[in-house]
């Protein structure tokens, strides 16, 4: 079993390696073998007409400004530019991912039929401290996440073949996606915290490279650096937390750590849980480390779907679920998690309400939805949180890929440039409708069941004054006010989510009609598959008693959903061509800039750090270099003194020589 998991991890990695090393060679072999590439095809599909406008991505930090068209068509006639002429890299990208998806499905089926945890260790690395077990472990949770990662990664790889067909650096792009898939599966299946951390960091660097894929634009590379640095702040905490846990338990093995938590001092557990929370907040873009995610939308849209919506950002939530025993032993950390989740979900949902850029709407929505998962964890419902993680992974990937189709067709990211695409793009319209319905939590699509499970649990915990039913009775749970905050924030977020989902949906597909073309088949099929998954995946929750919706909480949530949607619809109805958010008046800039958090961080952190950097540089040039440079005139002055006797007149030298000799003789005579 773990062998299968190991294959699933290694396959995409090999695919990435081979795609870079052997991709062009395979292309040549295939072409020589008589296989014609799409480039040679006599009739071009009609979508090629606007292929130039593919690489229109969000401009980070400048919400609402028109995006310049930065089409970079591949140099004409250059084979290997873009996925179109690069059959080898395409095969190396798609086939291993497809195999991995099959493997994850096999693993999930096996685990489903015979539940239990299976572990395997390749090698045990002695460190002098607790040993590092390089191994994998497969249980229900990991298998579930593995399937999510596999399916979304496959959908994105197939989608990218069409989306990136004119991209000159397709091979490296596909290789990074494969490497990312490999790293994410390593995180999911890791047995040891250190192995998990390795996968975690590889994901981070892949995210960095892929956000900055179009690095020719300075703003993109800045967004990549920001994403990298902000998540790094959290990762530093995570590493320390792992070390605290490992030293406390005497092992980095996750199962051992969870067994040992009861015996550790309470302070150690609290410190470890809070440190791990730093990493979670960084990776899962929770307040206060959420600012990188909206800017990360500068990456290509499939990347936003894979990394910044469905999988990598969910890794933080997954980590909490993995180490849930640690958090249950430290309810303080759960309370902190609950407060952060409440702030993140309401704040991000409000910000999503006012964004002008479709991808930024989805990015803030991602923050908000991830906060719903962490809220589920904070109120002690791991199954509900994981359920929402999976459904969210499906419908958010769907929404991003559908957004990619729309952006592809319209050539702009801005909602203002869209609208009326319902007739022109029927497939995208239907799929996106399912996605938005799932996002808003309408029955019977997936989001309803999972969000409802979280809300229901939060409600019961709030009514019980914060006592968690996963803890033994009488144990201290989270404070009652935290439980109430989480519950009320969830309801408020439900209303806001319905509002912004409806706004994005209306502004994309309704209003004055517009000429456009449907997306190519390779982009259509992934979203159709994901739409099907989003539609039915919620019913799997009915199998578990704790995930089943009940009338009271569900009706409450639907009431809020209806309120939010009705408010947005009324605002939109009068002027279908305009932006409903314009009615917010002076509140709008505040929301559009996400409460000026970026500006605040700029003032509070970025500028002081830059100032400190300047001080250090000044010290270096003026004090350290100054001391070195001051020795130069000193040496020169001494040299001038030494040069004085050199007159050029040999008679003077000889006089000196003679005087010296006489002195020496006198000295010898006097001393002997």
């Amino acid at each position, binding site marked *: 079993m773990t062998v299968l998991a190991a294959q699933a991890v290694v396959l995409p990695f090999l695919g990435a390696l081979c795609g870079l090393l052997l991709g062009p060679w395979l292309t040549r072999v295939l072409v020589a073998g008589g296989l014609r590439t799409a480039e040679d095809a006599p009739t071009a599909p009609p979508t090629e007409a606007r292929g130039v406008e593919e690489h229109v991505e969000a401009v980070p930090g400048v919400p609402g400004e028109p995006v310049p068209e930065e089409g970079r068509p591949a140099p004409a006639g250059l084979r290997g530019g873009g996925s179109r002429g690069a059959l080898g890299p395409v095969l190396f990208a798609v086939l291993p991912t497809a195999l991995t998806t099959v493997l994850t499905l096999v693993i999930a089926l096996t685990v489903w039929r015979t539940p239990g945890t299976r572990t395997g260790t390749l090698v045990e690395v002695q460190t002098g401290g607790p040993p590092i077990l390089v191994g994998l472990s497969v249980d229900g949770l990991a298998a579930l996440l593995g399937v999510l990662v596999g399916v979304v990664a496959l959908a994105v790889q197939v989608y990218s073949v069409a989306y990136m067909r004119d991209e000159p650096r397709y091979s490296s792009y596909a290789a990074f996606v494969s490497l990312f898939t490999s790293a994410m599966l390593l995180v999911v299946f890791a047995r040891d915290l250190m192995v998990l951390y390795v996968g975690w960091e590889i994901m981070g660097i892949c995210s960095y490279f892929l956000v900055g894929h179009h690095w020719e634009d300075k703003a993109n590379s800045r967004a990549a650096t920001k994403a990298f640095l902000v998540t790094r702040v959290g990762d530093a905490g995570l590493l320390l937390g792992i070390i605290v846990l490992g030293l406390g338990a005497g092992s980095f093995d996750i199962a051992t750590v969870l067994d040992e938590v009861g015996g550790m001092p309470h302070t150690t557990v609290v410190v470890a849980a809070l440190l791990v929370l730093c990493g979670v907040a960084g990776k899962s873009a929770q307040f206060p480390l959420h600012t990188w995610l909206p800017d990360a939308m500068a990456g290509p849209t499939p990347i936003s779907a894979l990394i910044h919506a469905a999988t990598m950002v969910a890794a933080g939530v997954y980590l909490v679920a993995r180490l849930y025993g640690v958090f249950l032993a430290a309810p303080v950390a759960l309370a902190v998690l609950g407060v952060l989740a409440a702030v993140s979900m309401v704040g991000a949902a409000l910000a999503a309400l006012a964004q002008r850029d479709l991808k930024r709407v989805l990015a803030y929505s991602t923050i908000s939805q991830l906060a719903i998962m962490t809220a589920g964890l904070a109120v002690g419902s791991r199954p509900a949180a994981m359920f929402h993680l999976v459904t969210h992974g499906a419908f958010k990937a769907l929404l991003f890929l559908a957004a990619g189709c729309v952006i592809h067709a319209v050539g702009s990211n801005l909602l203002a440039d869209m609208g009326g695409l319902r007739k022109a793009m029927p497939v995208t319209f239907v799929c996106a409708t399912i996605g938005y319905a799932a996002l808003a939590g309408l029955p019977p699509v997936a989001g309803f069941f999972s969000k409802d499970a979280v809300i229901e649990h939060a409600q019961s915990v709030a009514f019980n004054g914060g006592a968690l039913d996963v803890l033994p009775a009488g144990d201290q749970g989270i404070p009652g006010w935290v439980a109430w905050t989480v519950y009320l924030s969830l309801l408020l977020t439900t209303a806001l989510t319905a509002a912004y989902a409806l706004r994005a949906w209306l502004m994309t597909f309704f209003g004055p009609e517009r000429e456009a073309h449907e997306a190519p088949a390779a982009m259509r099929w992934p979203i159709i598959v994901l739409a099907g998954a989003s539609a039915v995946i919620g019913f799997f929750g009915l199998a578990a008693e704790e995930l089943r919706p009940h009338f009271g909480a569900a009706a409450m949530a639907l009431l809020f959903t209806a309120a939010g949607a009705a408010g947005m619809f009324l605002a939109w109805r009068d002027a279908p061509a305009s932006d409903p958010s314009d009615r917010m008046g002076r509140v709008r800039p505040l929301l559009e800039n996400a409460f000026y958090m970026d500006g605040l961080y700029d003032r509070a952190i970025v500028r002081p750090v830059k100032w400190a950097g300047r001080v250090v540089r000044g010290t270096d040039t003026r004090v350290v270099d100054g001391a070195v440079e001051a020795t130069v005139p000193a040496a*020169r002055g001494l040299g001038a003194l030494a*040069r004085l006797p*050199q*007159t*050029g*007149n*040999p*008679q003077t030298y*000889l006089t000196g020589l*003679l005087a010296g000799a006489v002195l020496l003789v006198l000295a010898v005579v006097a001393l002997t």
Partner: protein
Amino acid sequence: MSVAYPVVFSALLFSVGVYGVLARRNAILVLMSVELMLNAVNLNLVAFDVWLRDALHGGQVLTLFTIVVAAAEVGLGLAIVLLLYRNRQNIDVDRQDTLRETKQEAR
């Protein structure tokens, strides 16, 4: 005859030569002073040769060598002085200071 007379005499002769080398400006006079010093040495060699009654007369032989070497040296020296005069139109030793340290800084 005591050996002291020729030795004192040669010492005086040598001192005159040293003074000439160190103090004269004219290059030819400097060369002549060098000759004076050489001849002071020759005088010493001969005087000690006689005083020590050397059977092989090494001192005298060495003196002959010195005279030959001195002649060659003077030939060379005069040639240099001649060239110096041709190039610089003077043979003052203290004005030949091309190798002195100049005022401008060496970088």
